[in-house]
Each structure stands twice: as C-alpha cells, then as structure tokens.
C-alpha cells in the first residue's frame, strides 16, 4: 500500500490547496457559498467561474463515455492550466493514497482513500491495520458519495436564512461567553455516540466549564448495548470483542452479526476465517425471526418470533449453566429438541463455543448470554473483554423536563429518528423560556428545519478527527480534501461552543494525541496508532448481573397471534438509521435478503400474510401503542410467524433529491424498543409497487450454487466438479482451436477469479465497491422495477427448500409451482422454511465468450490476457451480446442514466432532449454547445463529475457495459511494472512480488471470498484455489470456459439435530435430475 507521507500538511491536502489557489478568484469563492440550488439566470451568467474550476480538474477527468458522442469535427479550444507554483513531490495524474478512518457509532473503520488531484475517488480498507484484510463494509464504501452529495448542508443559517460564516461563529462565541457566565445553566447537548478521544476531551472541557450543562448521547440504532451489558455484567467498563474465527460452535440469538450489527466487516472476516471447508470448520446456529444474513449463513436456523427467543435462550442456558435448572417450556417439541441438541453441541465445545445476542434484544438477554458464555468458558477465549470508556444512552423522555435554554444538537437527525422526542413540546417549552436550538449537521434535514441555528458539518473525508476502533486501537481521521462547501468539523464546532481558544481541529487532534512528532507522523502514515489493547484478564460476572438473570422469565409475553403481532425495528442494510437515505448507491443496493431497492416494507411470513389476508404490495396500517404507520407488505421467506419486520431509516421528508419520500417512516411507531408486541395490522386497500432486482426466488434445482454437507465433502471433496454428482453433462472439447490458446503462449498473464461461496455471506460490500470504482450510475426505483439496474456485480440470492414441499406434480401442468408467475411465489408453502444461498455474479470472462461472436462491430472481444474487453465507444447497442450471455451479467444503458436526474427517469413518457429544457435552455441546444451536457442541473452535474473515477470511462446511453475485472487497475499495474522495468524485460506482474492488482470487489470483500490473479502463474493464490476440488464453473457445460469459477459451499450441520438434512439446493437438484431421468 502506497500511503503518501503527510508531513507538512496540517490543514487538508496541500495539493487540493494548490488547486484551490488556482481557483482562488472571488467568483470561485462566491460559488462555494452560493445559495443552492442555483437559479437559472445565475447558471448562465456565472457559469464561467464554475467552469474554470472544473476545467482545471478536467485534464484528469476523462469523462469519456459522456463524451463518446464526441464533438466530431467541432474541436473546441481547450486549455491546460498548470500550477503557478509547481508543487513538490506531486505528479499530476497520479493517484495519491492517504490513510484515514470512518468513525462509526462504537468504533471506526480504518481506511485508505485514493485521491486524484486532491479529489477522493475511492475508499478502501486499510490493509496495514492489525488483523485487517483491507476490507470495509458497504457503508464505508458508499460514504464517499455523500461527500459529493449536492444536497449537503452548505450554509450557515439562522431562522432559515443564510448568514455569513463570521456571523455564525460570532454567535457561537457569544453563546459560550453567556454560558461560561452562568456555568452552563440551561445548556444541553444532544450528540450521537462517538469513540473520538478528542471529542471526549472536549466533552470533559465542557463539563468543567459549564458544570450545570447536560450531555445526552442518543443513537436511533443503539449498538452500545453490547458494551453496556458487558459493563453491567462484569462490573467494570468493558466491551466484548467476538472472535468468530476462534469459535467452533456459535449460537446467534437474534444477532445479525454478519448484517445489521456494528463492525460487520470484522465479524464477516473472522467468521469466514473459521469457516474454511474441512475438518474444524465452525458451526453456526441461528435463532431469529427475521431472515438475516446470519440466518442465511447458518447451518441450523430456528425461526422464532423475536420476543420469544428469550425462551429458547433460557432453555439452552438451563443445560449450559453450572447449576442445571428446569428448562422452561418452548413452543414445540421440535424447538425443544433443537435447543437441546444445540446446547449439547455448545457444551461439547467448551471454550470454543460462543453465544451472541443481537443488539435489538433487551439487556437481560445480553446478560444471559454473558452468563452462558461464562459457563462455557468462552470469556477470554472466543469472547474477549477490552476496557473502554463509559457509554450512555439518553432516555429522551427526560429531555422535556430539563429546563433547557439552549439545546445543541451534534449530528444525528433526532427530529426524524425519535418520535418520542416531540419537538413540538420542546418548542412550546421554548416559547416559555425563549430557548434556542443550535444544530450542527451534514444535511438540511428534518432536524435542521426545526432548529434555530444550523451549522453545516464536514464529511469525515474533510475533517480532522480521531476514533477508537471496536478492538480498541486509536485511529486518526485525516482529511483528504478541504471542505467542499465550507462547514465546520465536529471538533471545531464543539471547541467553539466550549469557547476554546484553540478551535483548529487539527490542533485539537494533535493535542489529544500528544507524543512525539515522529509518532504522530507515523500514525498518520499508517492510519492507526501502533498499540494493541490487551483484554481484561480474570474477569467474572458480578453478583448483580447474576441476580438480573432471573428476570427474563418474567418477560414472557402474551402469545402472539394475528391480533397480537410483534414488531421488529431493525437497522436497514442500506440506509442505516436513515443517514444514507440520500445516498443513491445505498438506495439502489438490493437488500441482501429481500433484494428490494428504494424501499422498505412490512416483512411478514407467508402464514401471517395469509391469516391477515394480505399479499405483497398491499398497503397496510400497523398500529402499535396507539400510533400507526402505513407501509406495503412483503412476504419474506423464512420469517417467523406473527412478526412484522420494519426497517428504520426510510420515509424521510427532507432527505434531499434522492432520499425524500422513499419508503415509509417506521420511526413513527418506534419508541426506543426494537422489539415490541401488541401491534395490529389493517389492510388499507391501496396497493404499492416494490422494485426488486431479483424477482425469482427459487433456483429451480439448477446447479448454479453447489453445496454439500461437511461429511459429504470429506467423503467426496470433488463433489462440485463439473459433473456435479455425476449428473451434469460432460464438458466437451471445442471443434476448433481457440486463438486465445495461441495468444496464451506469448501473453504475460492470464487473469482469472474465484469466488468462494463458502466465505461469501452476501453482504453487498462488493456491489458498492464496484459501483464506486467503475462509475456505475444509479437508475432509480422505477427503472429497477423495469429490470434496468446497472450493477456490474450482482449477488444472486436463492431460497432453497425441501423439494417435497413444492407443488410440482408435473412440469406440464398449470398448477405446478414452477409454472406460476413470480407474484405467486409468496403463496407457495415451500417458502416457510428455506435456506438461502448467495452467489456473486459478474462477467465470467469466458474463454469462448458467447457475447463476443455475436457483436457485429467488434465492440467486445478478448484480449491476449483472457479478458473479455468491452470498448464502449465502439458499441452501437444491439444488445445481442446480453441476450447471448448465459449469466446475464451485461448491463445496457437504456437511458442516459448519468446525465438524467432521478426525476427524469420515470414513466413511459420520458422527457426527451427534443422537447426538454434544463435550466431554461433547450436540451438539444445545450448538447450542441457542449456534448457533455445533460438534463442535470449544472451544480449536480459538477459534483457528479467530481465523484467519478477518472480511470474509467463514463458510459453514455445506448452502450453495453459489464464487469471488466477492473481492467483499469490491471492496466495501471502493468504500466507501472513496465515503466519500472525500463530497458529490462521484467514486465510480468507477480503475486509473489505484490504487483498483481486487486479488483475493487476483491479488495472490499470482508470475507476475502473473491480472489483474483494470474492463472498462468502456478504459484498465484487464484491458481491454487482453482486447483481445489471445490472449484467449479457455473454453466460450464455450455462450453463457455469461464475464467471466473466458484468454490462450492460446504455446510456443517449437526447430524444430531432434528433438522439435519442435505443442503436443500442439492436436494432440489437431485429431485430435478430424477425427473429428468424418469422422462428420458
């Protein structure tokens, strides 16, 4: 990893500054602060300054596809504007990498950010970080888009009116003076949780300076419960670190540690490490109500309503605990046998077993888990406890009663996320007491609307900060770019409120760090402080905690039914608690399980839907504790009965042009508890359309994903090989020689990839990484509904089930499940108990690619290194290649997705350049003047251009595109190697030398499921993986000879369990091929 030293840059990247200086004209500055959105007249009048700014960048832009239309013979005069002062150690056009970190609620994700000309373009994980494989989670991947969000808060505002920065800062100064005088009487802070030591230091300063002030920490999604539970259980401030890699048996009690918990990328990495196919692979039991990614990865999954999981937990604890108790009854014989065998398995693997409880479960459950883990001897082995700072969660009910004069809101969007904190009440309060709400936030959102003062916040890529990761390592957060729209960093804002003389965020972080300059520089270079945190040794459960354990018994709720439904509020896999609602990549990322985009829904089980008389898309009204919300129904296979799953974070009213009005706002009935019972549901009679990227749930017994149980794998390691159980047709030889074989003799490399289905959990990080790396546009809900999403990499998720439960009397029958429309899947009984399998699917770079031979213009051909290359500017868009692609991984730009704003991507009556006007000017005329123009307003377009990766062509409408194996990275690596080789012949990239590039998906994958490399190099990891018996090609019998192959998935179920069986996919396959045999 090539981190550039950051010695002399204290305030943002100096290179950006240099560019900044170039554009340091009054017009340019004016632009930065201009009101948004810009009026039409201004666009024309002042366009030059903005253009000027962009033109400087444009040398590196290479916004090619947009320009493929080309100006033809019109050659506009273009300028190259070099620096006035040549900066040192800087080469225009070369990417720079800086280490930083993305703060999360309870930790931080160490990152390395790639930046071109001072413009961050891609986020990667920091591979230097101890234990890390350089991966991230999907939120971190997507966060870069927020940086370029045109809807960001850009202005200091008072009472909704713009004020100057000076004015706003003066106000803060006065505020601090005022409260310094009265010791902070009436001053309250409402902040999101943070691990920043600097913020903690400032918080301390505030507590000292304003002793009477109050500080509340509130998160809509409370991930701090693990820490609070551990602290309570063990009587000292500790937080648990789960070592899924060390565990042999894992029991998840409603804990989606691979999905919606914090720190999933670490969990996935560790979990995948423990799941290497073979003896000693771990076994995962999941008890859950929602179908989660953890459930999808589980070997045994028990679907139980979330509020009844406590019973199962207690049942198990009775066997595990030192003094066996009489187990409480669970609802069925099956469940008790399940739980009993599970407990046996846990006990058989003492010290190597672990129990994890989900963050949405109440504290008591967490204590119970600690008790079980203690009893199993897991504490200190699979679960380590590390010291931490205290973590509070504010009970916002109290806020009404505090006599607050001024409320300072630091981040968060509490007006939206907390319906329990009625702003109205507060405002009444305020009218009595003339109080003020001061808001520091990234967006002008729901909270901003209700605040008196608004301070724009900077993105973490624009801020100096620090944080402590979940495993206790301090990481600096350093900016890569000066704030695009001004704004304040969080630390600066707090410091100013505190009236600190030193309000410079860099100085604050530097002061918190202390130490030598040497150490500081090193920490910035590495992206972390080289300091390991040792776990607290010899720790025991406290007596108080043990007493608490008796409590869950009393928790047993009234039994659930269709009039007493349970509601589960969960962190959305895409928009989190709503903070990514305006992030198009996230909105369009298919939910890992439902594959739903641009929406949330009321998830129910088939049985519940039937009893309630609802079907997918029916709008229903859910009433809970006297409050209600409306949303569409979505039948989720594998859901527990009588549970309603509501994803938080949607239904935003003031999110921005992407997120406003997407989905429904589940916070309306949310009261701080993530699991509540007593809800009722009523059908409203309206219907609603939901856009999914995958409409068909079943794999129909096709051998796309190949699975086996561990014992079968040990018996027959090559079970997945080309003939899969001896039933697939053999892969025959071509009739004629492939010219690629000739080319292989002289080519330097042959690229290939493997995807380990055993490691992949389906989290979707790769999808976003690919989107970010390859300039993939979003298309909006309606276009997704029309099947036109552009993701080069999709994750196919199939639900498999016992074939005996399928209604399949005969293929040639109208009533067979397989002949039903996709809309009717929701009524099929087989979806009740399903397994899910995930399969990342991208271009397979087939050696005999069917797409190539049908292209009439040579737009897609093979190169000598085995890449199926796509020349966008040659493509005329016959779409024949995609028809002929058996994997359907090619994507067609049906409309100008890059140049059209989302509002112009709806309906059959799309606006056309022939009639449409943008910013008051006829589009055709705009196009004539500048072939790069589109229907987006210029400010939006400018920011979009900034966010694009200059190494990849931006595609225009009418061309086909697809995964390229990140050819830009390969070419970059080859160019660098060749340049290094100079007049020698050492031009080959070698994995052993670390010169082989990683693809974006590979780099981002927390599970390291994707391996890319040179298959002509026998020592490369990809060659070794391809030599494994698990390796197989999807649809290999079509003689496509794909370069992307898969490693089959191995499940590790416990033969003693009541639900032990071969993987459903295999059973389905067998039943299909049996019918075939019978017929032929």
């Amino acid at each position, binding site marked *: 990893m090539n981190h550039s030293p950051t010695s002399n840059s204290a305030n943002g990247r100096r290179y950006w500054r240099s560019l900044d200086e170039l554009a340091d004209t009054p017009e340019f500055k004016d632009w930065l602060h201009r009101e948004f959105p810009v009026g039409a007249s201004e666009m024309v009048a002042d366009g030059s300054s903005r253009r000027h700014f962009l033109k400087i960048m444009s040398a590196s832009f290479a916004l090619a596809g947009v320009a493929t239309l080309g100006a033809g013979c019109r050659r506009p005069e273009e300028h190259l504007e070099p620096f006035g002062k040549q900066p040192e150690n800087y080469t225009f056009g070369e990417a720079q990498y800086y280490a930083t970190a993305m703060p999360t609620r309870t930790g931080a994700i160490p990152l390395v950010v790639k930046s071109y000309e001072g413009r961050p373009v891609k986020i990667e994980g920091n591979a230097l970080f101890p234990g890390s494989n350089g991966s991230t989670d999907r939120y971190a991947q997507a966060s870069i888009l927020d940086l370029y969000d045109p809807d960001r808060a850009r202005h200091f505002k008072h009472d909704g009116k713009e004020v100057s920065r000076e004015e706003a800062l003066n106000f803060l100064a006065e505020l601090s003076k005022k409260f310094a005088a009265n010791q902070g009487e009436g001053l309250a802070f409402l902040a999101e949780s943070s691990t920043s030591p600097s913020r903690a230091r400032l918080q301390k300063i505030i507590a000292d300076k304003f002793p009477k002030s109050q500080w509340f920490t509130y998160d809509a999604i409370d991930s701090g419960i693990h820490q609070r539970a551990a602290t309570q259980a063990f009587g000292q401030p500790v937080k648990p670190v789960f070592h899924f890699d060390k565990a042999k048996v894992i029991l998840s009690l409603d804990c989606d540690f691979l999905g919606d918990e914090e720190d999933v990328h670490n969990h996935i990495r560790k979990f995948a490490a423990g799941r290497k196919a073979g003896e000693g692979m771990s076994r995962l039991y999941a008890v859950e109500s929602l179908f989660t990614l953890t459930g999808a990865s589980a070997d045994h999954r028990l679907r139980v309503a979330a509020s009844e999981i406590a019973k199962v937990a207690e049942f198990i604890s009775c066997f595990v605990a030192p003094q066996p108790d009489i187990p409480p009854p669970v609802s069925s014989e099956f469940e008790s046998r399940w739980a009993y065998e599970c407990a046996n398995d846990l006990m058989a693997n003492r010290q190597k077993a672990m129990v994890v409880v989900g963050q949405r479960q109440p504290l008591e459950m967490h204590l119970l888990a600690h008790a079980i883990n203690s009893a199993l001897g897991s504490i200190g082995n699979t679960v380590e406890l590390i010291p931490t700072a205290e973590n509070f969660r504010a009970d916002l009910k109290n806020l009404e009663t505090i006599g607050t004069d001024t409320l300072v809101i630091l981040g968060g969007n509490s007006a939206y996320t907390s319906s329990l904190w009625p702003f109205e009440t507060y405002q009444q309060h305020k009218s009595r007491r003339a109080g003020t709400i001061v808001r520091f936030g990234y967006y002008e959102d729901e909270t901003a609307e209700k605040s008196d003062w608004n301070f724009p916040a900077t993105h973490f890529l624009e801020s100096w900060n620090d944080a402590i990761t979940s495993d206790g390592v301090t990481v600096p957060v350093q900016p890569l770019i000066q704030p695009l729209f001004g704004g304040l960093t969080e630390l600066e804002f707090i410091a100013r409120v505190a009236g600190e003389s030193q309000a410079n965020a860099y100085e604050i972080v530097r002061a918190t760090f202390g130490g030598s300059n040497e150490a500081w520089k090193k920490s910035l270079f590495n992206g972390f402080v080289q300091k390991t945190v040792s776990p607290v040794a010899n720790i025991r459960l406290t007596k108080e905690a043990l007493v608490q354990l008796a409590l869950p018994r009393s928790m047993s709720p009234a039994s659930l039914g269709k009039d007493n439904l349970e509601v589960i509020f969960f962190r959305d896999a895409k928009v989190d608690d709503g903070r990514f609602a305006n992030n198009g990549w996230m909105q369009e990322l298919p939910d890992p399980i439902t594959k739903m985009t641009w929406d949330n829904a009321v998830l129910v089980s088939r049985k519940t839907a039937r009893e309630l008389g609802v079907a997918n898309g029916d709008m229903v009204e859910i009433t809970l504790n006297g409050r209600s919300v409306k949303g569409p129904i979505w039948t989720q296979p594998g859901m527990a009965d009588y549970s309603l799953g509501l994803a938080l974070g949607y239904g935003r009213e003031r999110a921005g042009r992407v997120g406003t009005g997407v989905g429904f706002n589940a916070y309306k009935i949310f009261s701080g508890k993530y699991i509540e019972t007593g809800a009722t549901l009523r059908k409203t009679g309206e219907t609603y359309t939901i856009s999914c990227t995958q409409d068909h749930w079943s794999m129909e017994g096709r051998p796309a994903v190949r699975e086996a149980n561990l014992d079968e794998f040990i018996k027959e390691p090559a079970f997945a090989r080309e003939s899969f159980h001896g039933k697939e047709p053999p892969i025959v030889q071509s009739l004629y020689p492939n010219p690629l074989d000739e080319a292989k003799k002289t080519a330097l490399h042959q690229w290939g990839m493997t995807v380990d289905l055993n490691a992949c959990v389906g989290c979707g990080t790769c999808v976003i990484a690919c989107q970010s790396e390859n300039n993939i546009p979003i298309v909006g809900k309606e276009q997704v509904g029309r099947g*036109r999403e552009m993701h080069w990499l999709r994750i196919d998720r199939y639900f498999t089930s016992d074939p005996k439960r399928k209604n399949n009397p005969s293929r040639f029958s109208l009533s067979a499940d397989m002949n039903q429309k996709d809309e009717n899947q929701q009524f099929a009984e087989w979806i009740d108990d399903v397994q899910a399998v995930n399969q990342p699917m991208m271009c397979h770079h087939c050696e005999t690619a069917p797409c190539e031979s049908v292209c009439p213009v040579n737009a897609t051909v093979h190169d000598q290194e085995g890449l199926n290359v796509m020349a966008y500017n040659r493509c005329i868009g016959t779409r024949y290649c995609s028809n002929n692609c058996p994997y359907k991984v090619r994507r067609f730009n049906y409309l100008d997705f890059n140049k059209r704003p989302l509002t112009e991507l709806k309906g059959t009556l799309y606006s056309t350049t022939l009639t449409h006007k943008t910013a008051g000017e006829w589009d055709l005329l705009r196009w004539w003047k500048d072939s790069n123009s589109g229907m987006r307003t210029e400010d939006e377009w400018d920011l979009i251009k900034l966010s694009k990766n200059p190494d990849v062509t931006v595609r225009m409408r009418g061309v086909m595109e697809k995964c390229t194996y990140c050819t830009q990275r390969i070419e970059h690596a080859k160019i660098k190697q060749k340049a290094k080789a100079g007049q020698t012949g050492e031009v080959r990239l070698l994995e052993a030398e670390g010169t082989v590039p990683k693809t974006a998906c590979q780099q981002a994958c927390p599970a390291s499921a994707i391996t890319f490399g040179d298959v002509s190099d026998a020592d490369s990891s990809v060659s070794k993986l391809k030599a494994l018996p698990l390796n197989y090609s999807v649809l290999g019998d079509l003689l496509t000879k794909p370069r992307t192959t898969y490693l089959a998935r191995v499940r590790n179920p416990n033969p003693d369990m009541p639900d032990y069986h071969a993987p459903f996919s295999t059973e389905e396959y067998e039943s299909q091929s049996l019918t075939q045999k019978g017929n032929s």
Partner: protein
Amino acid sequence: MADSVLNLAELKRLAPPAELRRAPVVEGNPATGALTDKLSAFAEGKTPRWWWILFLPAAFAATVIFPVCLFYQVFTGVGVWGNNHPVMWGLDIVNFIWWVGVAHAGTLISALLFLTKQHWRTTIGRMAEAMTVFSVAMAGLYPAIHVGRAWFDWFMMPFPNSNGLWPQFRSPLMWDVFAVNTYLMVSSLFWFMGMIPDFAVFRDRSTTRVRKTIFSFLAMGWTGSARQWHHYEKAYVVLCGLCTLLVFTVSSIVGLDFCTAQIAGWHATIFPLYFVIGAVFCGFGMMLVLLIPLRKWCGLEIVITKRHLDKVAKLALVSGLIITYIYLMEFFIAWYSGDPYERWVFSHRLFGHTYMVMGWILILVNVGVTQLLWFKKIRSNLAALFVIGLLINCGMWSERFVIVVGSLYQDFLPASWGEYLPTIWDIGLYVGTLGAFFMLYLLFVKFLPMVAISEVKGVMPHADPHHPLGGAKKGGHP
C-alpha cells in the same frame, strides 16, 4: 382482334374434354386490348372513396406516429421501449422478423412459381412483389433503429477508416444486415424491372403530359422490340432464380440470429427452416388479407379469381402443416434432449403463466385455424379466407413473440429472470410501420401497374402464335 380467325368448329374438335381443361388464367379470356383497358382502369380512373378512407389513416400513422415514435426513441434511448434485462430484445425484433416473414410469400409467388411455370401467378405476382418490397423496407428499418446508438450504424459497414476497425463478420447480425439489404435491393430491382413494360403501357395510354413524362421516364424508353424482350426475359429468369434463393436464405439467416445463440429456445438447428416456412406462411396470410378486398374494390375479379385465392389458401395450408410439424419437433427435441433449460422454456411456452396466452394463440391459430383450409367450402368463402389471413398474421406474430421474448425472459440463471411488456412506443412504432406499409401499398395500387399487364397478356391464349386465338392459321394446339 383476332376473333375473326376463330374457327369454332375446329376449336371444339381439338379441345380436350372439359374436366381436363385448364381453367383460364383470366376469366372469360378477354381480348388483349380489352384486358389492357381493364387492368389499367384503376390507376387511370378517379380515386374512389374507399381508397381515401384507407389511405388517410395509414398516411397519418406513417407520417406522424412513425416519425414521432422513431425520433423519440433515438433522442431518448431504447429505454422508452419495454426492453429490459434479461429481455433485451422485444417488439423491435419481433416485428423485424414478422415483417421479413410477410415479405417472403411475395417473392415465393412471383419468383418460385414463375420458375415452376405456374401461369396463374402472373395476375397476383406484382401485388405480391409490392408486398415484399414494402415489408422488407419496414423490416430493414428495425435492425437499424433498434440499436442504442443508431447514429453509429455505419460501424457495421466495412470501409477503410482512420480507426483501422472493421465489422465483425462472425456475428449473425452482420449477416442479417447483408441479407436484409440484399433482399430489399434484389426484390426492388425485380419489382421494378417487372414493371418496365407496364410503365410503357401506362406511358402509351397516358392522356396528360405529366403522366406521359413520368411514365416515359420510368419506362426508360421501352419499345417492346423482340431484342428487348429477348434480354428482358433472360434477366427475368435470372432474377427469379436469385429471388428464389433469397426466399430460402433470408429468413434462414434471420433464423441464424437465433440458432447460433446460446439461449435455450433459440439454440436449435431447426431455426433456418422454421423461419423460412413461418415467413412464407405469414406472407400467405398477408396475401389473403390484401388480395381479397383489393380484387373487389379495384375490379379485378376476372384476373384474381377465386381459383387464385384457393391456391394461395392451399399454399398457406401446406406451410401451416410444416409449421405444425416444426412445433411438434421443437417440443419433442426439448423433451428428448433432456436439457433442463430447453425443457423449462418449452414447458413455459404453454404452461408458464406469464406468456401462456401468446403460446396458446400460436397453437390455436397456426395449428388449429389453419386446418380449416382443408375444406373447399372455407377456401371458397372469401370472408372466411380474409379472417383466416388476419388470424395467421396474428398467430405468426405471437410465434415470434414467444420465440424472442419467451426464450429470453427465463434463461439459465433464475436470478436474472424478468418479464417484458411493450410500451406505447413499441406499439406506436409497430403501428407506424403498419401505416407506412399500407400507405405505400395504397399508393402503389393507385399509381403503378398493380397487375403485371404484359405478363398476363403473355400467358393468354391470344399471345400464343400457335393458338387460334393468337392468329395461328391452322393446326397448332388449342
């Protein structure tokens, strides 16, 4: 005319018995001059009201709906259509194949039947050829405009360029480009050449200077000399031979688009034959639809007799039976191959809930309704034939829909399955091409020699110098 030389007694003596006698091509064997008057009458007469009633909406569709839909698509993107992922081809290609299909019967009638010396073809040949030319023109449009960047269509033309790039000739789509262009070119040439002597007829009959000028120009100085006829006839035979080749190969090449592809439901060697027969079948349906009203309205009952329609219907029946056989084979092979993907596609053609209706229309019409043509009664009932003609066109359209969409929407990996529904722009473009076709056809009927006058005259007994009617003094054959 030569009535004077008719020796009735002799004629009667020499004539074969009635049951062996071939029915005359033109009812009543009118004299050559009268026949000329009759066949030119419609083009020279006053435009009747029915013509306007048909022409105006067709012209509206051709000149308003068609360009609007076309330009809208070109300027907005293929996304205005219903095409999606995985159904990358929808109505654009369905209509393309359909139009190519319609064309084929025309060539078959005019060229293949000429080579096999079927004199009855002369009276309907020209109308069939016109149908071919106009429908190939419609068909040729689709491949050009269905692409994402129609303004780069010239990438498909092989000429030296500064990019050093060439088209990729392994692609059946390239073959398509050549095939459809060739078909358009050759059938237009054939059509035009056939009309030259008739242009001369119109030229010589014209009463106004404008008409005279135009037709003089079009007739290119045709005098009807023996030398001209000599070369003309040779060229005609050659062109007929070439057109016959095209009948069998253009649709085959269109079929290659599909059979060289991987997709289950496309990947079958039967496709070239399948498409040829389907095309011909569809074209005969269209012939019925065009001939039945026009023969009445244009006063051509004596030249386009019920016997002609009966023959067209019989040809439709034969091609329909072959189609039926092909359907059976398709299903059989799908089952026999044991290929799960093939089986899936074919079971879904009939039982998959999404496009089941199209599948059954195909079976009911192409297999079912066609069987009605076995009955002489049906074949001589013009109304029934007209309806059957229409139904065959619908049936063949749904067949193309089932082949194109029905094979794409559920292919290998269930994760990428989807559905396809055409939008108003898909339909609008189809309506536009239909309009353009009918507009051109009506213009042809009105202004050009819609029956091959010289050819018809040439197969009359009056034209046989060895026939008493042709002026044979004695002997010869009747």
